[in-house]
């Protein structure tokens, strides 16, 4: 009987130690859960922030592209008009229509002046990165589009990274809640082990320790996985 009582006291002592370890684990895991939750909320906010910036950048890019293409179109149109008017003036001279030819030349000069000045306003005609390689050629539109999309792409990439981080931390936070639920079960089992008769102490302790092991293994895989 005395030997049984000694064993019972030992199990009870072990139960107290394991309970103590479980409560400390619960405290640490609750801290990890709060941390994961906060990180997921921050990442969620950043994801929304970058999405707003990306939409703004796409709007700005639309305005810029519209302006550049309109400027280029105007410059090309005026340059073509100037060429056509010069050809018209030559034809008129051949037909000895001197006054009409002079008027055509004047209009050609005006169109040329407009084309030259408007061309100065377009990066597609002035920036060495996009301007035509040869006279009369077309600007490098692909290089222009690649360059203008760069900032929007960077922001979308940051937004995607933040969204991924949000998903990852949110999943971790949910997993920690499950681990905490497991530790609540463990505490219940250890509490029962301390309050129950000596015959039931070992089964409660074994089951509780098994669940605690699973919970700690899951926590380690969440921390280092």
């Amino acid at each position, binding site marked *: 009987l005395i030997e049984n009582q000694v064993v019972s006291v030992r199990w009870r002592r072990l139960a107290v130690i394991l309970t103590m370890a479980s409560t400390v684990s619960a*405290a640490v895991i*609750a801290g990890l859960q709060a941390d994961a939750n906060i990180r997921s909320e921050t990442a969620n906010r950043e994801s929304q922030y970058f999405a707003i910036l990306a939409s703004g950048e796409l709007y700005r890019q639309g305005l810029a592209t519209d302006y550049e293409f*309109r400027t280029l179109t105007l410059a090309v149109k005026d340059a073509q008009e100037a060429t056509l008017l010069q050809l018209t003036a030559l034809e008129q001279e051949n037909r000895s229509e001197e006054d009409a030819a002079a008027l055509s030349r004047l209009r050609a000069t005006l169109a040329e002046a407009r084309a030259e*000045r408007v061309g100065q*306003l377009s*990066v597609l005609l002035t920036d060495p990165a996009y301007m035509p390689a040869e006279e009369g050629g077309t600007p490098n539109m692909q290089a222009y589009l690649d360059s203008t999309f760069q900032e929007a792409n960077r922001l979308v990439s940051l937004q995607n990274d933040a969204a991924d981080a949000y998903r990852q931390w949110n999943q971790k936070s949910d997993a920690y809640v499950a681990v905490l639920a497991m530790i609540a079960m463990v*505490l219940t089992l250890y509490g029962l082990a301390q309050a129950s008769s000596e015959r039931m102490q070992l089964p409660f302790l074994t089951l509780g320790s098994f669940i605690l092991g699973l919970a700690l293994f899951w926590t380690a895989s969440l921390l280092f996985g």
Partner: protein
Amino acid sequence: LAPQGEGAGGIGRSEIWIAIAIAIVSLSTAVAAWRTSDLDSHAGDAEREGLIQTVQSQSLTNEDWRLVYEQAANAQRYFASQAEAGALAASGNAGARDQAQALQDYLLPNLALIAGQLVTNPAYLQDDGSLDLQARFADEQAANQALNALDLEGAFARADRLRNQRRWLSVGAVLLVVSLFWLALAEISRERARRSALLIGLAFYGFGLVWFAVVELGALAAARGGV
């Protein structure tokens, strides 16, 4: 704690004291839970405010860009007409020179009015004849009072500070819960086990209270320091 006096109904004196301790710790835990939730709520408010201000800021920025490109389109018309007037004036035709003068006197001033500062302020005209739209945009932003009144970085920094405080307070709240668990264990245990459980519970409670005080004082100091 050692020898137990029996009160009415066979309840030991230590059991009454432990019950009182449980009540106090429960109350403290409730206050801690409220404070943690309160901080979370304030952090959420600051975060929402930051996001709303981000939307406002982006709308105002979009409007500034729209204005700059509208001015650029008008400036383009101005410079085209100016070039035309120059070509007319340079021609040998007297009628064309009169037309150039009319353009200079009537059309160009009106176009300049529409085009605004991109035409009237030489700071935006670059050496190669192009327009410095980025500089015009920067000046529009600097003059935009509604935009300058926004403080989204401040709102996000406040949200981060409150969340950080909540992070540490939630650890303190767990310490109180752990203390509650041990006190409950003391209530149902006997003799030496009861004494040990009670001491551990009280130690956790004291540690939790100190933890709370340190986190709150640290947050107060950080808020005063403008962090």
